[in-house]
Structure formats: structure tokens, C-alpha cells
């Protein structure tokens, strides 16, 4: 009956952002000032490495936004996890344990978010707005309101631009991002959990009526997202080689923007991992290209703002025509 239309729509859904990405890349490749540098392998590596932290946060945020929620505490959570990682290494723990501590810290914040949202029956916006302050405050407290210096270990090698051994080609963090994106795309599409994420975002009452444990699923979603923020925190520490409690301020908005540009609907029920990754790369290439062009920061901000509005407007137009 409408099978072909469904397929077509699925194609259009990620094709839209994809065309946007190509457009950004082509545009900068044509700029005379940067065209000989922009598409070089070294620059592409650069962009990939710069995307890792936002991408890890956005992978978890995709689940949350599809389920109809939002997480404003993501960036604070990243800062807290990076501080905890640095703190643990400084305290003499092995690097592996420190990384684990960082990831689990993120997971714990996520668990708290999910637990409070379901038990207090408050909207995610409020709970995570509170957690934004709490996590940031904790990070500053633990770090004594300054940067934590930590000795160099393999952890600080995760985000280097030219990794050793050379056959890795990309930084270990970039590989982690790619593998996790593939894994989570599969989780979203082929598991019962993934299906329940969509169902809750599409019609929570109907999902509950059908026997979906909405509370438990939401806690899982926020915990998963928290763990990913924890990993992003580890990467942040690796990039800076210090634990900085004031890092990543406002980054939650970049993360949310990536999901939205990639087709995620803030009213739930829509979104995909592939779309989100495209959203991440659109923003990363824009930043990278603008910097190479020597455009000031505020120009980048204005362009990204325009892109968010344009992306969502196109989305709305498409649905209105079909409805």
C-alpha cells in the first residue's frame, strides 16, 4: 500500500541532514583561502577528533530526545567526570581504574536524573536543569575550584591527532566514537529496549497501556546517556591533560543541536543515530572551516544558530505536506 512511501520517507529523513553536510564540505572546499588545506587527511583527522566529545554526548542525547525527554546536565556531567578521572589518577589509582571511575560517575548522574524524573514525576527539563548546577558545583568542589594536574599516562593519548602506533590512523577516541555509534544504532533499531524508547516518545500513555514499563525504561535511558557523558568526560580530560571543572560550559546546547539537526524531534518519537552523527559533523566542519577562514567566533555562532532553525523548519514543512 504505502510501503514505498515509507521507505522514501526514511531515506529523506537522513538524506536531508546528509545533503546539508555535503553542502558545508563543498562550500569550504571551494573557498580559495582554505581549499588546499580543508580536505587534507590531517584536517579531516582534526575534525574527527574535535567531534568526539560532542558525539559521545549526542549519542546518549538521541535516546533521551527520542523518548520525549531532554538532558540539560550533559555538559556539567562531562566536566564532573573529567575532574573525577584526573582526581583518581592523581590519587594514585591505575589509569584503567580512573577511566572506569570517570565513566561510572557519569552513569551515576544519569541514574539520578532518570530516578528523580520517574519518582518525583517532574519534567526532565526541571530535574536536569537542577542537575546542571549540582554536577558543575560538585566538579568545582572536588577540584578545589582550580584545574587538577595529572601525570601523563596512556589516558592522555586517547585524543592525540597522530596516534601511535601509526596503523591506527585515527585517535583511539575516534574509533571508540565510531564503534559506539554503530552499536547504539543497532540497539535503537533491533532491540526491545530501542523500540520502547520510540514508543514512550510517541505516545507514553499508549506505551504504558501496552505493558511497557515506562519508568524503568526511562531510568535506563538516562543512565545510558550518563555513562556516555562519563566517557566524554574521560575524553575531555585526555584532550586537556588536566581536570578542569569549568570546561564544556554550554556544550549541552551543542549536543542537543546536533540531535535536532539530525532529525530528532523535541516532542519525541523521532530521531536516529545516523542523523545525530551527521548533525555532529555538520557542526564540526562548520567550526573547523570557519576557524581556518579566520572568521571570528561570533560568526560561527550565528551560522550554527541559523542552521538549527533552518533544519527544524525543513522538517516541519516536510511533515505538514504529508499530513
Amino acid at each position, binding site marked *: *500500500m504505502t510501503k514505498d512511501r*515509507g521507505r522514501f520517507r526514511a531515506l529523506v529523513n537522513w538524506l536531508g541532514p546528509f545533503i546539508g553536510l555535503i553542502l558545508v564540505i563543498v562550500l569550504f572546499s571551494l573557498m580559495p583561502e582554505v581549499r588546499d588545506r580543508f580536505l587534507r587527511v590531517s584536517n579531516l583527522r582534526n575534525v574527527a577528533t574535535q567531534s568526539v566529545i560532542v558525539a559521545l554526548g549526542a549519542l546518549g542525547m538521541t535516546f533521551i530526545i527520542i523518548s520525549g525527554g531532554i538532558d540539560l546536565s550533559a555538559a556539567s556531567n562531562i566536566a564532573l567526570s573529567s575532574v573525577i578521572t584526573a582526581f583518581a589518577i592523581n590519587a594514585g589509582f591505575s589509569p584503567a581504574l580512573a577511566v572506569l571511575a570517570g565513566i561510572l560517575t557519569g552513569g551515576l548522574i544519569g541514574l539520578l536524573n532518570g530516578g528523580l524524573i520517574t519518582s518525583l514525576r517532574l519534567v526532565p527539563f526541571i530535574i536536569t536543569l537542577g542537575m546542571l548546577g549540582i554536577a558543575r558545583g560538585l566538579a568545582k568542589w572536588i577540584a578545589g575550584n582550580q584545574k587538577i594536574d595529572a601525570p601523563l599516562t596512556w589516558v592522555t593519548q586517547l585524543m592525540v591527532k597522530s596516534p601511535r602506533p601509526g596503523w591506527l590512523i585515527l585517535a583511539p577516541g575516534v574509533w571508540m566514537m565510531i564503534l559506539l555509534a554503530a552499536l547504539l544504532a543497532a540497539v535503537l533499531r533491533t532491540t526491545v*529496549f530501542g523500540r*520502547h524508547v520510540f*514508543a514512550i516518545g*510517541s505516545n507514553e500513555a499508549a506505551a504504558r497501556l501496552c505493558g511497557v514499563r515506562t519508568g524503568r525504561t526511562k531510568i535506563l535511558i538516562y543512565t545510558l546517556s550518563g555513562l556516555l557523558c562519563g566517557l566524554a568526560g574521560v575524553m575531555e580530560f585526555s584532550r586537556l591533560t588536566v581536570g578542569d571543572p569549568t570546561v564544556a560550559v554550554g556544550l549541552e546546547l551543542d549536543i542537543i543541536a546536533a540531535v535536532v539537526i539530525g532529525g530528532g524531534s523535541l516532542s519525541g518519537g523521532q530521531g536516529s543515530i545516523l542523523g545525530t552523527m551527521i548533525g555532529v559533523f555538520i557542526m564540526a566542519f562548520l567550526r573547523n572551516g570557519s576557524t581556518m577562514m579566520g572568521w571570528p567566533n561570533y560568526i560561527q555562532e550565528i551560522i550554527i544558530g541559523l542552521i538549527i532553525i533552518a533544519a527544524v523548519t525543513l522538517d516541519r514543512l516536510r511533515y505538514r505536506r504529508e499530513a
Partner: protein
Amino acid sequence: MTERAGSGPPPSVLPLSMRGISKNFGATAALRLVDLDVERGKVQALLGENGAGKSTLMKILSGAVRPDAGRMFLDGLPYAPANPLDGRRRGIAMIYQELNLAPHLSVEENLMLGREKQTLGFLRRAETRRRVREALELVHHPEIDPDVPVQELGIGARQVVEIARALVERASLLVMDEPTSSLSQEDTERLFQIIRRLAAEGVSLIYISHFLEEVQRVADSVTVLRDGQRIFSGRMDQVTLGGLIRLMVGQEVKQLFPKVDHVVGKPVMTLRSLKGRRMQAPVSFVLRRGEILGLAGLVGAGRTETLRTLFGLDEVEAGSWEAFGRPPGGGCPARRIKQGLGFLSEDRQGEGLALDRSVADNLTLSRLRPYSRWGILSLRRQRQAAEEWMARMNIKARSALQPLGNLSGGNQQKTALARLLHQQADILLLDEPTRGIDVVSKSQIYEWIGRLAREGKSIVFVSSYFPELLGLCDTIAAFYRGRVTDVRPASGWDASSLMAASALGQA
């Protein structure tokens, strides 16, 4: 537990037997000692006017509401559900008027939601697909593509999906509450085919509808409720349509409506085949000065949509209309208010009133000009004006500044009506103005409507409660499935003919 004498244990063969069910909400008895039996593979109709107790009875059956007294048996075994999940586990599936589907998910995902076939959390695609195909075959719609998102299906197909979902659960008792009210004729026919096939395969059904002709066609037996009591139960072929209507309406209730003498004058508003965006069909009628015009019909008959079109909430698609001798043109509610129209919404909490704002704010919101100068509001004068209106309309509140949400439904509704008077509307469009309010407030509102007509205002009065239409209106127009079937002076109608016109479309 109170048991009526003679209602002993039921025959064990019945798929469902409800015995002596009673339920009180506060002081009002919603159900009194109601019995309901359903036979295997049969369609049992459940009829009654609005408020007769049908939905309460079905909520008790589903497990959403617990009865104060009475017992239930499924296949002869006691059944006392603690929640709706219990009911579903015992094979009872409810299909409501408003569909419970996740619009973004595909047909298959909706059908299997909450009972996905899985191995270690991963979906077993092949088995899932087989179960879905089976269910769609059972409802004889194998052409529905399991991969299509539900939001792309028409309303009829969505209903089919909802029924198929019940069958995936292997439901043995299906309850359908007004399943055809939003379906086209064609979809209705298809639904009936499905119902017959299901019955042939041993599924039992309870069918609730206001459309009596349909009920007569599809049901094997019928139970009629009135005022929470079972009035009649028997085979469908034992009763005529007229008999059913008499059973539902009961004796002619001569309720006392305060009659205020008033004179009906010249036309002030004329609709000529007017069709708004959400109306099913074009509508024509004439409203005269000082006239109370009742719009009768069932929920969803198109009356609300007509009022909303007139008030500029929906665009006009075809036809024309004029008010006070001029075409009002396109426009928004603000323009209609200037032109002298006032609208009282049936959804008091959702859009009619701002319940967390004060009585004074709600009352004066649509005309703040008298209390403001250069955009600055004189709160003192606003409050004084509100207090005057509260006294005139008998609105009981601690002060004009009390949040409206703290007042009773009757006082809220009087405030809503006071707002229309305060904004000096000459044509009042009232949508179910007495729904859900106490008797005293009701009669006060009736009296106000009468007095307004005497002052020369014109009133369009939408109600699903026939006695108040008959008692109050000068003229009554009956709506059936979006059309005006008949317009007569109120004296030319009685409860039975109104019911026939609303439920059967008979002029």
C-alpha cells in the same frame, strides 16, 4: 456485599456474567444492581443516554474502577480485577473511541508493543512478523503493510490496527465504545464484517453506540441502562427502534424550566451552506433576534465545529454567512468579539477559562478597555466591575481575586457566561453550557439565558441533553453526522423525535 435475591451463581458456560453491580460516586449512584451477560460468539449491545452508566460499567469490567457491590465471572470463574492489566491478562480488550496508538511507530511495532518476541533483548523479527500477519489476516486486512507508520494510515485502518492488537493478545472478549463515530460509511461496513467474522470464530463482543440502526444491524442482544439501572435486556429482534428509544428516554420528564417571556424578532445571523475546515458537511440555519436556538445531536455530530467556524476558530471553506446584515469576512476571535459574537467553549478547563487566574481576570479578559488607560490597567476598577457582575450572576467566591480553579463547576460556568455578557455580545454561542454542573447553577443559567433573550440577545444553545433543549429553546435544529436534518419550533419536537433525528438521522 449486597446481593439481589435470585441472582445466584451464573451458568458456567457464559464468557462474561456481571451480577448486581453497584457503584456510587459520592452521593450519586452511578450504577444500581446491574446485571449483564454476554454469550460466546455473540454481540451484546449496551445502550443508554449520556450519563446512564455505560462507561462506568465498562470501566468496572476493564478493572479501571472497582464496584462497591456485585460480582463478575469469566467462563464461570470469579473475576475481580485490581487494575486494567488484570483484565487484559484474562482476555478482555477495550477499544476506545480515542485510539491508543503510538503515531510514529509502524503497524507491527504498535501491534507487538509491550509483548515483543525477544532473545536476550534482541527482537525475533521472523516470529514477530508471523504473529502480525496472523492478526491482520484474522481481521481480514492482510493488505495493511506492517512497516507503515500508523500516522500515515486513515482513521478506519487505525481502528483495524487497534482491533488486531487485541487479537494478538488473544482476547476473548472485546469491548467497543462508539467505534464508528469517526468512521466513514465504508469503513463502518468493513468494521461490521470484521465483527461478524470475529463472532463466528468465538470471540464475544460488547458494542456501545448511539447509532441505533447500526446497533440493530450488528448486535444479537441488547441491554438498556437508564439512570444507572438496567431497564431492559433481551434479544435484538424482540425490540423495535422506537421501542429502544422509549426505553432509553423513559417517561416524558416534565422538568421545570424557568420560562421567561420573550419575543422573537428579525433574523440577525444567517448561514447559507456554510462549511468550515473541520465540518463534515455544509450547514444552513437562521438565528433571529431574541431567539434561543437549540442545536441537538450526539457528540461528534458537527455542532461544536459549526460554532467554532462561526467564531473564527476554523477557516470557512465554502458557503457564506452573515451577522447583523453583513458578511463578517474572514477573521479571528478578536474580530468576532468586536462584531458582537461571544463563544462559550465546551472545554471549560482546556480552553474556556484560565483556572489559575482570578475570577476578575477571567471575567474581564475579553474587554479590558474600560479599566485601562494607555495600556495601564486599573486593578481597582477591574475588581469593582468584577464584583458587580459576581453579585448580579450569583457567583459565589471569597473575593474577586480568588483563583477560578477553587470554585465549583457551576460558579466557573457562571463566570464564563458573565464574561460574554461583560464583553457585550449580542449573539451568544453556548457549547454545552450546563455540562457537569450542579442543578441549582443549571437552573440559574437557564434563567439567565431566558432573560438575555428578553433583552433582545440571540442565543445558539448546543446540548446533548434533550430535556433542557425542549424546555428552554424556541427553535431546535437536529444534527446528524454533520448535517442539519430538521429545524422545527420546540413545540414540534418531543424527546423521542429528537432522539430519532439525532441517532438515526430521521427527519
